[in-house]
């Protein structure tokens, strides 16, 4: 089934998109790293990775004139890390308006005793709603996080993680998916998440 996948990874300009491409390669799927609207529109699946600050990433999408293209995607679309944060209405990081595909504002973790920011490390997922994206997941699946900002828990939340507070770990609204963790660096659990996403038709 994965053989029919034509994946477009939107080139959001981060320094380490390479690791995502290698993770996709390990699943036997070819991907194209691109800012070409036609390639993105014609892909069966689209991933928006994000490394760096939300305002910078958003600025790069605007300069590449990709915002309308992204807003009109009908195929399964996954935002990862900052790429997921951009799906929301706005982010406190640089006080920037984002894509607004999902409701809510992304906020910084407050300073809490014993909880360093950035939140960096492995945590499990607490599953709130079943979804094809979380097929075969259990609460023993740990994923790898590196982030200082997080999205609130809401109706679009499929799974949460607890770090001083519950935040949205995995989200979905119709064809729009988001993962705050780095599936490309989350060992077998991350590979399962990517495989599940690419199996959604």
């Amino acid at each position: 089934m994965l053989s029919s996948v034509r994946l477009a990874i939107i080139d959001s300009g981060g320094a380490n998109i390479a690791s995502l491409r290698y993770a996709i390669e390990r699943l036997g799927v070819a991907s194209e790293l691109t800012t070409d609207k036609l390639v993105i529109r014609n892909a069966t699946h689209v991933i928006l990775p994000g490394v760096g600050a939300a305002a910078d990433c958003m600025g790069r999408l605007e300069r590449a004139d990709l915002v309308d293209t992204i807003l009109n995607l009908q195929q399964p679309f996954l935002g990862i890390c900052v790429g997921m944060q951009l799906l929301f209405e706005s982010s406190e990081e640089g006080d920037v308006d984002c894509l607004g595909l999902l409701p809510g504002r992304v906020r910084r973790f407050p300073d809490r005793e014993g909880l360093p920011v950035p939140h960096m490390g492995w945590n499990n997922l607490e599953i709130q709603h079943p979804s094809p994206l979380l097929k075969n997941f259990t609460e023993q699946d740990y994923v790898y996080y590196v982030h200082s900002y997080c999205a609130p828990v809401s109706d679009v939340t499929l799974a949460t993680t607890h770090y001083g507070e519950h935040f949205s770990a995995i989200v979905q609204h119709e064809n729009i998916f988001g993962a705050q963790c780095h599936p490309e660096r989350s060992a077998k659990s991350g590979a399962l998440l990517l495989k599940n996403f690419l199996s959604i038709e």
Partner: protein
Amino acid sequence: MRFRDHVVVGDIIDLASRYRDEGADELVFYDITASPHGRTVDRSWITRIAKILDIPFCVAGGIKSVAEAEQVLGEGAEKISINSPALSDPDLINRLSSRFGVQCVVVGIDSQTVDGDFRVYQFTGDPTRTRDSARRTVDWVREVQERGAGEIVLNCMASDGVRTGYDLAQLKVVRQICKVPLIASGGAGAPEHFRDVFTEAHVDGALAASVFHSGNIAIPDLKQYLIGEHIEIRP
């Protein structure tokens, strides 16, 4: 986990695969190919590692500029770790964190107790050049955080390689002023040492090399032990 000894790339890939399969949560590679004279070096080994690893990894050693860091990250590393170059050029931390984000920038600190205080040592990779950097460890820990370190690896030199346990006294002091993830390094010799560094010094991670390379401690056994001791880790 550290790869500090001279091993050829094929061996590194075998070792990295082994630790990946055994459940290591992160790997640190000390890049011994890095030149002390600033000439361009071949870093394609990083790509080969990035293609087979599905866990985060950090490259340490020889990164003295934004351009070198960009090359390492571009090859697929998640993080870069700087130590002696940060002491010679502290602003390097600012430049790296503003270019790549604090989450990429690990600062390694080699520290030991001198006359009842903790002091930072520089050039510890070369015993003939190792010297007191004339900085107090607590001052340097504060400064690197202000400059944009996203993680600190504190290598307690007196403990390093002797396998008598992490330097809990020093780690506790640094933990109190360290608001970013703190990784303990130096001294691991038994599973209890890992338990103690988490429960007593409250570090975010424990780094070890020789006990894993030698096979004295197997990672799956260590993880089972720590879970049994109620420490929350990835199984």
